[in-house]
């Protein structure tokens, strides 16, 4: 019974919200070896760090949890530089992975986003609707990574359980 899809709630990641001028943003993160994505709603990757271009002057930096302290120091998020602002948001999101042969089915239930490869390529990362609320969707090997605001974690978990198993 149910779909061949596995939902996993992930542990903590380091997340930084970057808003402002592109060249300033680019400078502020240059030491990480990351470049700004060249296409909207896509991400670049380096050493497990992802930089997602999610809004007009808006990027989201995702990194492994253990890098948080170092990033806090080097990105100086508390410094309200005039051209670009970086805010720590590690706690603000919960991540889930949706993987398996039928991961696409789960996404098609959860979101109106057109996830065909031509529209949502390998490096795609975008905010869209997920079970009625807003959330981040990224394509990953064999599935998707999604992030929702932490306060909705329990609700999203129930939804996933429901649609994967068909119970309730």
């Amino acid at each position: 019974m149910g779909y061949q899809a596995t939902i996993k709630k992930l542990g903590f990641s380091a997340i930084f919200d970057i808003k402002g001028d592109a060249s300033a943003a680019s400078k502020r993160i240059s030491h990480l070896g990351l470049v700004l994505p060249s296409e909207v709603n896509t991400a670049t990757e380096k050493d497990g760090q992802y930089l997602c271009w999610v809004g007009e002057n808006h990027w989201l930096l995702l990194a492994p949890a253990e890098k948080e302290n170092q990033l806090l120091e080097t990105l100086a998020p508390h410094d309200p530089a005039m051209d670009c602002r970086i805010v720590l948001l590690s706690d603000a999101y919960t991540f889930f992975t949706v993987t398996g042969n039928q991961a696409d089915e789960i996404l098609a239930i959860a979101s109106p986003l057109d996830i065909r490869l031509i529209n949502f390529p390998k490096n795609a990362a975008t905010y869209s609707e997920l079970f009625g609320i807003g959330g981040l969707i990224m394509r990953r090997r064999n599935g998707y990574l999604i992030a929702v605001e932490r306060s909705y974690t329990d609700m999203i978990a129930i939804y996933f359980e429901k649609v994967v198993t068909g119970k309730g």
Partner: protein
Amino acid sequence: MIKAPFRLPSGGMIDRRKHIEFEFNGKAYFGHEGDTLASALLANGVFLTARSFKYHRPRGIMGAGVEEPSCLVELLGENAAGNHPATTIRLRPGLAAKSVNCWPSPNFDLLSINQLFSRFLPAGFYYKTFMWPNWHLFEPSIRQAAGLAAAPDEQIPAQHYETRYWHGDVLIVGGGPCGLLAALVASRSGARVMIIDENPHPGGYLRASQTMMNGKPALDWITAIRTELDANSEVTQLWDSTGWGYRENNLLMVTERNPSEAHVFQRGWKARARHVILATGAIERNLVFTNNDRPGIMLASAVQRYLNEFGVIPGRLPIIFTNNNSAYQLAHELQAAGTKVTAIVDSRPTDVIGSEKNGLEIPIYAAHQISTAHGGKHLHAVSIHAKDGVTKKLDCDLLAVSGGWNPAVHLFSQSRSDLAYDEGLASFVPDKQAQKLSCVGAAAGMMNMASAMDKTVSAITTILGELGFESPTFTLPELVPSPNYHLYPLWHVDGMKPGDKAFVDIQNDVTLDDIGLAMREGFDTVEHVKRYTTAGMGIDQGKVGNVNVIGNIAKISKKQPGDIGTTTFRAPFTPVDFGSIAGQRNGATVLPFRHTPITQWNKEQGAIMYEAGARWQRPGYFPIVGGSMQDAINTEANAVRFGVGVYDGSPLGKFDISGRDAAAFIDLLYTNDFNDLEIGMGRYGIMLNDDGMILDDGVTFKLAENHYLMSASTGFADLVFRHMEYLLQVECPNWQVWITPVTSQWCNATICGPKARDVLAALGTSVDISNKAFPFMAMRDGSVADMPARICRVSFTGEVSFEINVWPRHAEALWLRIMEAGTPFGIVPVGSETSHVLRVEKGFLSLGHEVDGTVDPFDLGMGWIMSSKKSHSIGRRSVDIRRSSGKQRRELIGLIPESGGELVPEGAPITPNGDRIASEGFVSACVWSVVNKQVIALGLLINGRARIGETVIIRDQERTIKAIVTKPCFHDPMGHRLRG
């Protein structure tokens, strides 16, 4: 096992090896896999299957698919549900069904007495009577008689409905020859394709007829196509699925009834395609003559389908009555199956009857019509008459009628595309399309299969080109040539008399007489006729009858059907389960909900959880054993006033605001001045909307030059964010301000009460928390209980408060440490009920109580917050205009009700002298004050501030309560305590 008497020994597409037992109206029967309930009943010779809606006339099965106007049944047992056309129910083991709308049975129905009174029950009769003494007296019995099946049972087996999206290039509705062909060609081009059909098997007319393709039965051609489509991962085939709604931007609503996934009961698809192809075929209409509803009278297309798909001929002595040549095909096929048709009654003159009659050894009564059918519970003869009036009676037990074909333009019309009347078809056909869609096949009015398929290929080729796909090569199947469709409209037979029961809408019992009556009374447009007679408003939505209604209106008003037009085609095409529209959104997830890291702890403490703003779940209060809710609130409030309490303030909206123009932006938002705010300090502010009404209030801290942390009330945080982003992006696009919502990056536990500082000290903090070093409205970064924290000295309670903000990863640990460190001081958790008490005692405003969309800060006695230096802040101008009228305003006041300790209901009006007249104010909040040991209230009162000391009267319906008007603050008016 008894042989079903009307089943042919061979033929059909049923699986004769599989017998299925089922029950109808309490009796057991057998059918085969592949049967519908209707075909199985007909095979068993069950012809009287229903009673009509209004007159309870005996009825049988008339159609073979969704067009069925007559036989509706109620399914019993598991998945019980009513009003299903028997023609669309797949036979399955254990199926049990009964007729709707008759009691005790269709054979003996008590309400058939209505037939005797039918003369008194013309269309709209109820408008003319039942007025005295009043309608409500008659209503219950009339309601009982109406309606069809009972509503589904409350017991729902565990079933899962699902909704999902689909995005693709080409979506084809209809799996007949033209739809299948379109799907095949499109799939070969590499496009992403979806094809749907409401039948369990594709094929459409091919399954209902003996069409040969490439010299072989058409089924082979269908199988080959399916095999190819199956192998193409870009193709989605949905059978037993109805395309029921055509929305904007090519969004098709599809309900899939039997998905292959066992855990899904039904699935609602929201399918969006770049191009939609409607290959929905055509629906046959019936003919209008006296007693045209008798059991045994069926659509010719239905008889043909029963013969070919199910191996059933539902009669021994068939007659065909037609106004066109398509029904001749049925005569040929019956003849081939060994059943001789008694006669064809064709209303067309002899000279237009062409090759269709070749090879038929049957009397053809050209230029003849059937004037009446004979027989009550089953047809046994018909009277026919010629143009010259000679009549004749012919025995028969099956009458196959064909009034011509109506292209199934339902979805086309729903897409807002235009229809046109086609004289040749005497029906409505697609005209101008309003979206990216095309019609092919019979739906486009192409009634000749060979040319319809030919045109389908050219249509799909063009579409694929437009979509950027290369057209694949393809060869059309070879078909036996058939004569071109020919019809002369016959809206009703000649020589009808007043009182004859000739039905235009079978399901709603609307007769030709009713149409005439409506028009005589002035209801002369098609929409009026529909609403006056209810024609076309049944479960079938008039699929076989509507065009006859239009034709007859035209005839009576001496106009063309094209001038009359159709009624509006609306979704759904056929009724669909509400469950398939709602899908998985139910129960716990019907609305979003939000938790903080402390929610679980709160629940474990037995807190009564409330729905707070923005879908947060918050504790309302923490019940105490053996105590009332008021006891619990008093305990919590006492703790805060005299000891210490703590609450989880995490849902409060928080925004990090920075950038070159941040200060100017804050200044624009709030009515008060922020430009003299020092770094590390916060200030309370009020925001207005453009109407000059209060939008939100909250405290904003200045973290650095042009860097602020703004808090917004829980319920309005989203609105505030939207408001700010709008101003920035639309009105001030050149300002440099960045806003990051940080609500979920910070949790807070707020310790409040005279002993709050002691608890914080006991927790251990790196911050100097003395009042001098850390004054009210200041903010400090540091550590608390070894966790990084930001402490703010704000107070929503009127007592010393420390709002300890930490990252959520630490929130639970902090909370537990607070409870532990606070225990010696008697700390208790505090819910929102208590917060309410505390803020009322202080006269702090609350959105939703005092602020009800009508007040400005002056009304609340907060004129000081309307900076005189700023006319530009949002909403200021509107406030000034409103106040310039000089009209008296309702102002915030306190009230001490003389209610003897009983709370006054919040919202109770205050009226002049307590009279039952328009109010002069109302009680916005009322609580038991733990400091005043009495009931206190806040309210808004006309001219209230000038009336302090007056006694006013609150009126709760019959009860009046005197109250003394006071200043709106009952505790520590100078604010010494919260600054302490």
